[in-house]
């Protein structure tokens, strides 16, 4: 139990509760109204999906800055598909958009994995390329609510048992990816790769394949986020999702996923996303103009990585002190030089050999 409370995720959840509590105290409608409750759950849904995907990439000691552009492209694609074929089942459209996202992620992943170049620079480049493709394709056109089926748009606002559908989608994504990361061999290998890429290669882990898979998964989730975006907002311009990569990376590091890879959880990233957007919505309520939102995001990112460093330093000092307390070689209780039981027979055997 103590371990659960000590975890980084618990701290973020606590911060989230504090923000909600304070804001609700200022304006009760923030939580205690039908709309307030819905917004609390619905607003972060898209960012949660993006953050879960990004967390997987960051855990491998990489980053994907192109997710905002992938979201824009797939959201626009969703709208165009409905315009071109209004009778297409929603699930088919969604799958096409997810596949398109996975393909874009795969492009990032292949360049990173095969040319072994920093993901930061590559995805900074594809951020502009993917956005440029959307801009060129869309021009000044826009997808409007009228271009998409009403059932699809309904998904963006509908609730089941008081929980918005998009939030349910985000929760399913979170649980599925979280389960994969914690319980599968592949998931643990992603952590190992991020923890020490050279050692991973030396161990003979399929580093390249895992990286491709992580980037493709992230792209697919960004594609899903694009579909959710179209459903939620009803209009898609060529600029949809611009600058979102900052929020996503912010959510992930605030959620305790170390930017150096190897540690953190997708649940933390999801909580980080909720915290970030809840703070954003809370700012105007407590009287701070929303122009300052970006500054808050920036301060949170820097604060979070600085905090992680402080905690890491404290941990390594503690571990160093533990080394002093229990010197290697002597199991506690065994007097120095004593032969532990069981070692004797082999030694005798050797003496006669």
């Amino acid at each position, binding site marked *: 139990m103590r371990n659960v409370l000590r975890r980084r995720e618990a701290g973020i959840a606590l911060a989230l509760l504090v923000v909600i509590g304070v804001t609700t105290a200022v304006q009760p409608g923030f939580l205690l109204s039908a709309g307030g409750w819905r917004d609390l759950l619905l607003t972060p849904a898209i960012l949660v999906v993006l953050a879960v995907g990004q967390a997987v990439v960051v855990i491998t000691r990489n980053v994907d800055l192109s997710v905002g552009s992938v979201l824009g492209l797939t959201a626009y694609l969703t709208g165009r598909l409905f315009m071109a074929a209004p009778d297409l089942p929603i699930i088919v459209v969604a799958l096409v958009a997810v596949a398109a996202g996975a393909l874009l992620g795969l492009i990032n992943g292949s360049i990173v994995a095969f040319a072994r170049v920093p993901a930061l620079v590559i995805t900074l480049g594809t951020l502009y390329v993917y956005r*440029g493709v959307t801009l060129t394709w869309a021009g000044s056109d826009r997808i409007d609510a009228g271009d998409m089926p009403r059932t699809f748009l309904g998904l963006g606002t509908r609730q089941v048992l008081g929980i918005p559908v998009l939030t349910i989608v985000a929760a399913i994504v979170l649980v599925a990816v979280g389960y994969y990361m914690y319980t599968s061999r592949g998931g643990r290998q992603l952590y190992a790769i991020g923890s020490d890429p050279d050692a991973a290669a030396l161990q003979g882990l399929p580093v390249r394949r895992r990286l491709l898979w992580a980037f493709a998964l992230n792209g697919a989730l960004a594609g899903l986020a694009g579909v959710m975006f179209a459903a939620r907002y009803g209009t898609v311009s060529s600029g949809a999702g611009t600058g979102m990569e900052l929020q996503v990376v912010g959510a992930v590091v605030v959620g305790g996923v170390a930017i150096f890879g190897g540690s953190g959880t997708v649940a933390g990233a999801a909580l980080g996303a909720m915290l970030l957007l809840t703070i954003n919505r809370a700012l105007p309520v407590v009287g701070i103009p929303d122009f300052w939102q*970006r500054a808050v995001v920036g301060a949170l990112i820097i604060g979070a990585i600085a905090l992680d460093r402080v905690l890491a330093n404290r941990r390594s000092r503690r571990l160093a002190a533990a080394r002093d307390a229990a010197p290697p070689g002597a199991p506690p209780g065994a007097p120095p030089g004593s032969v532990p039981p069981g070692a004797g027979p082999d030694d005798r055997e050797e003496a006669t050999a």
Partner: protein
Amino acid sequence: MRTHARPWWQRALLTREMLTILILVVAWIVASAVVQGFDGPLTITYLVLDVAPVLLIALPMTLIIATGEIDLSVASVVGLSSVTFGLLYQAGLGLWAALLVSVLLGAVCGAVNGALVAYAGLPSLAVTIGSLALYRGLAVGLLGTTAVTGFPGSWTDGATENLGESPYPVITLGLLALIAVFAVLLHATPFGRNVLDIGRSSEAARFSGVDVKRTLLILFVLSGAVSALAGVYYTLRYGSARGDNATGMELQVVAAVLLGGVSIFGGRGAIHGVVAGVLLIGVLGSALRLEGVTVNVINIVIGTALVVSVVAPRIAGGLRVRRRSAVGQRT
């Protein structure tokens, strides 16, 4: 022992930088031949005016990337300095004083980045993504969606007017002076040697007594101050101080630096290559614009150029290694 393994002309010509310069010359010739009105004096004037901020920021960025770090917050510092300059002017401060305060503020922004990277040991990528948001957020927060305009004509003209009858703007002189300063700093001082050593092996540099932390701090402060200077120029050039000025310019700067032959892994790079890289992007931009191509396509071109400039040397290097080991295979 011989000082050099190759004759001087090979050392001077067979370099990564000369490749960028060659591409620049070819691009210039092709654009002059194909694009209507490219070669005119007005094009040259606008080319210099347009690339000036990118060129300025690319100079300290070259040194930062040469150490293996990166500063993604530069465009946000441009925005913040533009807003500060505008607000101080609006508040009645003299323009020289406003300029000085803005540049100092930029240096402080850089010092914050530098301290977090060098002394707290945080990854520059993460820190400057954070400060990219933070500094831009401060700029937008301070000025909202409004703009400060109405700067005195003597200053705005100074930012754009030409040297006598020539097509070159007055600022060309300042740019050349700064290029010279950074070239000497990187290529002919112990400091510059340390910068490259840090990029090649920061561990080995430390074991040679190089103060890696202080060096990085200095570089980030330089980057912040020069970005702020570029912000003031940007404001005067367009006569308007806005929070969203130069959004996304960090991409152009990083792309230009990498196109200019600076290794993203640190340890190699030269100022003349970077200047050529900046000009190459500028020439491509103005040629495409004159051809009526939209800014979207230009962004696709820049983004692709960025990816290619990072991937191409790796592929070339990989092929070289493979060829060498193939030779080994035979023996």
